C-alpha cells in the first residue's frame, strides 16, 4: 500500500492529469464531466456537459479554482434586490430593529407614539404575552435581543394580533423592517447563487466553510451579524489560505457572539467597562477556545489538553464586539443622531483593558506576557500550521468531495499539499480533483446529497427558475438542513447515515413532487414533453436528471408507473424521488 502511495505521489509530481494507472476503475469522459459538475458544483444544467466538453474538463476545473476571473452577471442580477447583502451591521441594526428593543429605547427618549404605547400596554393587560424575543426585560445578564426566536422558543399562542398590527404599521411608516427578514434574504442569496452562479466551486466552498465555521442565526444578535459574516468573512477567503480564513472567522462578530468570546474577560481586569460599570463580570469563557481547536483546526483528537483550552481562552480575552446587540442604533438613527461616533455597532474590536496579559503556554509554545492582541494571533498561527489541522481539514475536504469514508492515502496526500503550500485552499483542492480516487467509479454517485444540494440540483437540472424565497428554503428546512439553522458548533453532518432516515426521505419525495407540479411558491419549472411516446419522455428525463445513470430495476419500476394522467409531471416527480437522484 505504501508503495502504491509512493508511486501515485511520484506520478502526481510529474503530471497533473493523472487519470490513469493504479487499480481504480476509470470513469468515462462523460461521467467525469457529470461527476465534476455534481461535486464541484450543484448539478448539471441543460447544456452544461456540452459546454464543459468544448472547454476541456481540465480547463473547466482550473477556471472554477479561480472564481474571481469568472464573469457572473446572471447571479449578480438575481441577488441585486436583496438589500441586506450590502448593508453594514450598524445599518441592519438601524433598519431591522427588534420591536421590543426599539420601543423601549423610544420610550426612554420620550419618543414612543401614544397609540403604540397604548397597544403595548394593552397587549400585556389583555393577558397576552409578547411574541418570543420581543419582551422587554430588566435582566442585566442578557439583553432582550439575546433571546432565541427561531427554534428555541415556539410562538406564543397568546400573542396579541392588535399589537402586532400596530408594530407593523409603525415599521411601515418609518421605513423599518422586521429582523426576521435579514436571515430570509441571506438564505435567498445562498440559494440564488448556488442555482445561478457560474462560480459553482466558490459556492460549494462557501457552503463548506459556512458549515465548518458554523454560526446559528437563532442565537441572540447573530442574525444581525450574519450578512457581514457571509460577505466579509467567508466569501472572500473561501479559496485563499486557510490561515487567512481562520483569522477572519476569529475576528468575526458572528463567531465572537455565537461562541461567547465577546464576553470573555480576564477575571483580574476589574471594572473594565466604564460605560457599564454595573454589568456583572463573567470572567473567562472557554467556548471559543475549545471549539477553535476541536472543530475549526486540530480536531477532537488533535493533541490538545484542557489546559491548552484554558490558555487559549486567556489569549483571546478582549477579542470582542462593540455594542454587540446594536446599542440604540435604531432609535438614534430615527432621531437623526449618530451613535457616539467612535465605532460602528456590531463590529470587532480588541479591548485591551479586559485582556489577560500574563504569559501563556499553548501546545508547548510560549506566548510571552504583554502581547496584547498578538496573543490570539499567535495562537491562530500555531493552530493553522499544526499537522493535526492539515490532517483534519484534509479529511473533511476529502469526505466532502470524494466519499463518506475518506481514502486514507488520499487524505495523506491532501494534507501534505496543505502543509507544503501553507494551507493554500486552491492547491489543496487541486490535489483532490486530480486524484485517482476522486476520478474513480468508486466515488461516482456515492455521496448522498444534503437537502440544500438536493434542492439546488433539482432546480438546476430541470432548468427551473427560482426567486430563492421562503417557498424554496422551507423545503430545505423540512428535509432537515435550514441554512444558518444548525444550533451546535459542529455543523451539519457530511455523511449518509445522518440524512437517510424515514422522515427526511419522505420529505425528499414530497419535494420532488412539489417541484415537478409547480407547487413551490417562487419557483417555476417548465416541463416540456420532449416526446409523444411516454417511455421516451421518461428516458429523456432520466438523461436530463441523471445523465441516464439509473439502475435497470428502478427504470423498470418507473416504466410501470406511466399512465395517461399528466405523464411528464408524474415521471419527473418520481425520478426526483428515486434513490439514484438522492446521490451525486
Amino acid at each position, binding site marked *: 500500500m505504501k508503495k502504491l502511495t509512493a508511486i501515485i505521489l511520484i506520478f502526481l509530481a510529474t503530471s497533473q492529469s493523472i487519470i490513469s494507472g493504479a487499480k481504480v476503475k476509470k470513469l468515462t469522459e462523460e461521467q467525469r464531466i457529470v461527476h465534476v459538475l455534481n461535486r464541484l458544483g450543484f448539478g448539471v444544467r441543460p447544456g452544461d456537459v456540452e459546454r464543459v466538453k468544448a472547454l476541456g474538463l481540465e480547463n473547466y476545473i482550473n477556471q472554477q479554482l479561480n472564481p474571481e476571473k469568472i464573469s457572473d452577471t446572471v447571479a449578480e442580477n438575481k441577488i441585486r434586490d436583496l438589500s441586506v447583502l450590502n448593508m453594514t451591521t450598524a445599518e441592519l441594526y438601524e433598519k431591522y430593529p427588534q420591536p421590543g428593543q426599539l420601543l423601549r429605547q423610544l420610550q426612554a427618549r420620550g419618543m414612543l407614539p401614544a397609540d403604540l404605547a397604548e397597544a403595548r400596554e394593552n397587549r400585556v393587560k389583555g393577558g397576552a404575552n409578547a411574541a418570543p424575543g420581543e419582551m422587554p426585560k430588566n435582566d442585566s445578564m442578557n439583553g432582550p435581543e439575546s433571546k432565541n426566536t427561531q427554534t428555541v422558543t415556539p410562538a406564543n*399562542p397568546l400573542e396579541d394580533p392588535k399589537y402586532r398590527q400596530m408594530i407593523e404599521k409603525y415599521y411601515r411608516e418609518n421605513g423599518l423592517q422586521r429582523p426576521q427578514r435579514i436571515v430570509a434574504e441571506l438564505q435567498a442569496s445562498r440559494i440564488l447563487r448556488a442555482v445561478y452562479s457560474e462560480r459553482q466551486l466558490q459556492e460549494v466552498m462557501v457552503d463548506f466553510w459556512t458549515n465548518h465555521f458554523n454560526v446559528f442565526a437563532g442565537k441572540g444578535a447573530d442574525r444581525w451579524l450574519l450578512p457581514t459574516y457571509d460577505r466579509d468573512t467567508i466569501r472572500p477567503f473561501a479559496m485563499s489560505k486557510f490561515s487567512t480564513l481562520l483569522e477572519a472567522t476569529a475576528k468575526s462578530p458572528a463567531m465572537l457572539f455565537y461562541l461567547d468570546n465577546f464576553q470573555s474577560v480576564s477575571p483580574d481586569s476589574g471594572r473594565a467597562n466604564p460605560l457599564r460599570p454595573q454589568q456583572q463580570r463573567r470572567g473567562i469563557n472557554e467556548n471559543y477556545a475549545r471549539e477553535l481547536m476541536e472543530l475549526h483546526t486540530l480536531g477532537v483528537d488533535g493533541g490538545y489538553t484542557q489546559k491548552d483550552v484554558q490558555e487559549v481562552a486567556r489569549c483571546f480575552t478582549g477579542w470582542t464586539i462593540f455594542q454587540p446587540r446594536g446599542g440604540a442604533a435604531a432609535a438614534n438613527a430615527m432621531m437623526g443622531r449618530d451613535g457616539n461616533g467612535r465605532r460602528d455597532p456590531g463590529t470587532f474590536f480588541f479591548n485591551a483593558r479586559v485582556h489577560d496579559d500574563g504569559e501563556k503556554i499553548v501546545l508547548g509554545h510560549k506566548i510571552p506576557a504583554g502581547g496584547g492582541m498578538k496573543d490570539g494571533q499567535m495562537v491562530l498561527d500555531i493552530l493553522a500550521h499544526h499537522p493535526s489541522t492539515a490532517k483534519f481539514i484534509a479529511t473533511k475536504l476529502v469526505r466532502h468531495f470524494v466519499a463518506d469514508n475518506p481514502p486514507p492515502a488520499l487524505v495523506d496526500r491532501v494534507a501534505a499539499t496543505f502543509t507544503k503550500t501553507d494551507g493554500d485552499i486552491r492547491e489543496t483542492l487541486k490535489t483532490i480533483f486530480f486524484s485517482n480516487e476522486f476520478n474513480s467509479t468508486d466515488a461516482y454517485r456515492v455521496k448522498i446529497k444534503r437537502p440544500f444540494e438536493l434542492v439546488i440540483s433539482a432546480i438546476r437540472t430541470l432548468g427551473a427558475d427560482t426567486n430563492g424565497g421562503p417557498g424554496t428554503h422551507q423545503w430545505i428546512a423540512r428535509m*432537515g438542513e435550514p441554512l444558518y439553522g444548525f*444550533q451546535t458548533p459542529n455543523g451539519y453532518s457530511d455523511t449518509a447515515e445522518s440524512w437517510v432516515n*424515514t422522515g427526511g426521505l419522505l420529505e425528499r419525495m414530497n419535494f420532488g413532487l412539489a417541484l415537478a407540479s409547480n407547487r413551490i411558491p417562487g419557483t417555476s419549472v417548465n416541463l416540456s414533453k420532449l416526446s409523444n411516446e411516454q417511455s421516451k419522455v421518461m428516458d429523456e428525463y432520466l438523461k436530463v436528471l441523471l445523465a441516464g445513470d439509473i439502475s435497470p430495476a428502478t427504470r423498470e419500476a418507473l416504466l410501470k408507473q406511466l399512465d395517461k*394522467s399528466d405523464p411528464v409531471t408524474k415521471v419527473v416527480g*418520481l425520478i426526483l424521488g428515486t434513490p439514484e437522484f438522492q446521490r451525486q
Partner: protein
Amino acid sequence: MNRRFFLKSGTVALASIGMSLSAPAFLERVALGNALTGGKRKTLIAIFQRGAVDGLNMVVPFGESNYYSVRPSIAIPKPDAGNAESAINLDGFFGLHPSMSAFKPLWDSKRLAIVHASGSPDNTRSHFDAQDYMESATPGVKSTHDGWLNRYLQNKEDADRSLFRAVALAKTMPRVLQGQAPALAMTSLAEFTIRAGKSSENLQGGFEAIYARKVNDPLTDMGRETFEAVNYLKQVNPGQYKPENGAQYPGNPFGNSLLQIAQLIKAGVGLEIAFTDIGGWDTHTNQGNSRGQLANLLQQFSSGIAALYQDLGQRMDDVIVLTMSEFGRTVRENGNRGTDHGHANAMFVMGNSVRGGKVYGRWPGLGNDQLYEGRDLTLTTDFRDVFGEIATCHLGSKDAKSIFPGYSLSASNFKGFLG
C-alpha cells in the same frame, strides 16, 4: 455508526410465531419483542416549557412568608376554600396555581410527583444556553453533539427497531433527540405521507414500487420501511381519532401534539420516547397572578396533560410524563410586575407507576440569605438525577451513566419518585 442504517429489515424469522405476513415488518418486530419480553414497552413523554416558567407561581411555596413579601402584586394567595383564586393546597406548604386544577385529581390519587428546586447547576441565564444544556444534559459543555434522549436510544439496543421508537411533535428535530439514533420529527401524523392532492395515492404507489426492490442499498431499504410506516399510520387513521374516557384536549397546538402522542401510543407502533414543547413562559412584564398570562398558559398546559392522562387510562401503567423548563425565574417580582431569568425550577413527573402525592427534593427556602446569587431559588436537585431515575427505573436503561457524560450518576441521588 448508525446501526439501523446498515441493518436490513425482514431478517427476523416471524413464521415460527405465526405472525401475519401482511403486517409491516417493523410492527412484527415490535409485536415479537413484546411477546419475547412478556412485557409492554415503556414510554416516556417529555415536555419542555420553553422560555422558563415561573416555578414559584406554578408550584407555590405558600408556607414561605418571604414569598409574599417579595411578590407584592403577583403572589398566589394562600389556599382558602372560599376563594377560587387561591392556591390549591397540596401538602400544607406547597400549592398548585389555581388554574392547574386539572392536576389535583392526579395528585390526590398519588400519580403526580413534583421535584422542586431542581434544574441545571450551570448559572447561565441565557435561554439558548440553558435549553441547550438541559437537552444535551451536559451543563456548561456546548460541544456535546447529541441530546440525552438520543443517547438513551443509542445505549439501549432496540431489538424491534421500531420506526416510531422516538418521535418529536415539532417542526425540526429538537436538540434533545438529535444524534445517531433514528428519531422522527413531524408537526402532525397526517403529514407523514405523500402529499400531492388527488394524485397522492397514485404517486405513493409509484414510489413504493421504486423502493420495493430488495437490493443491497440502505437508502432503498429505508424507503421501503418508510412506506410500511406510512401505510400503517393510514390504517390507524389519525384524522378520525376519538379520545377515550371522555378526555377533552384543548384545541391548541400543544393539545394537538399530546393527542397525537396518545394516538401513537395506542397504535402500538413501538413508541418509547415522545417529545413536545410549549412556549410563551418568558413573563418579564405583567405576568399576572391567579389570572393573567401565566395563568392562561398554565391552564392550557395542565388541562392538556390531564386530558392525555385520561385518554390513555390504564396505559398510563407504562407511560411517564416528565416536564421541564430551562431555568426558573427571580424570586422577587420586577418593576414591571413580572419576573426575570432565575435559577432552580419545578418539574412534574406523572404516571401510574409514580409514587406521587409528594413534593420531592430538599426545599432550600426563600429567605434573602438562602437565595442563589442573592436573587434566585437555590438548586438542590440536579436535573440529571431526575432524568437518570426515569431512564433507569422506568425505561430500563442498564447503563444510564453513559447517558450523562461528565456526571457521576448514582442511584443514591435518585429522588425515589419511582420507588
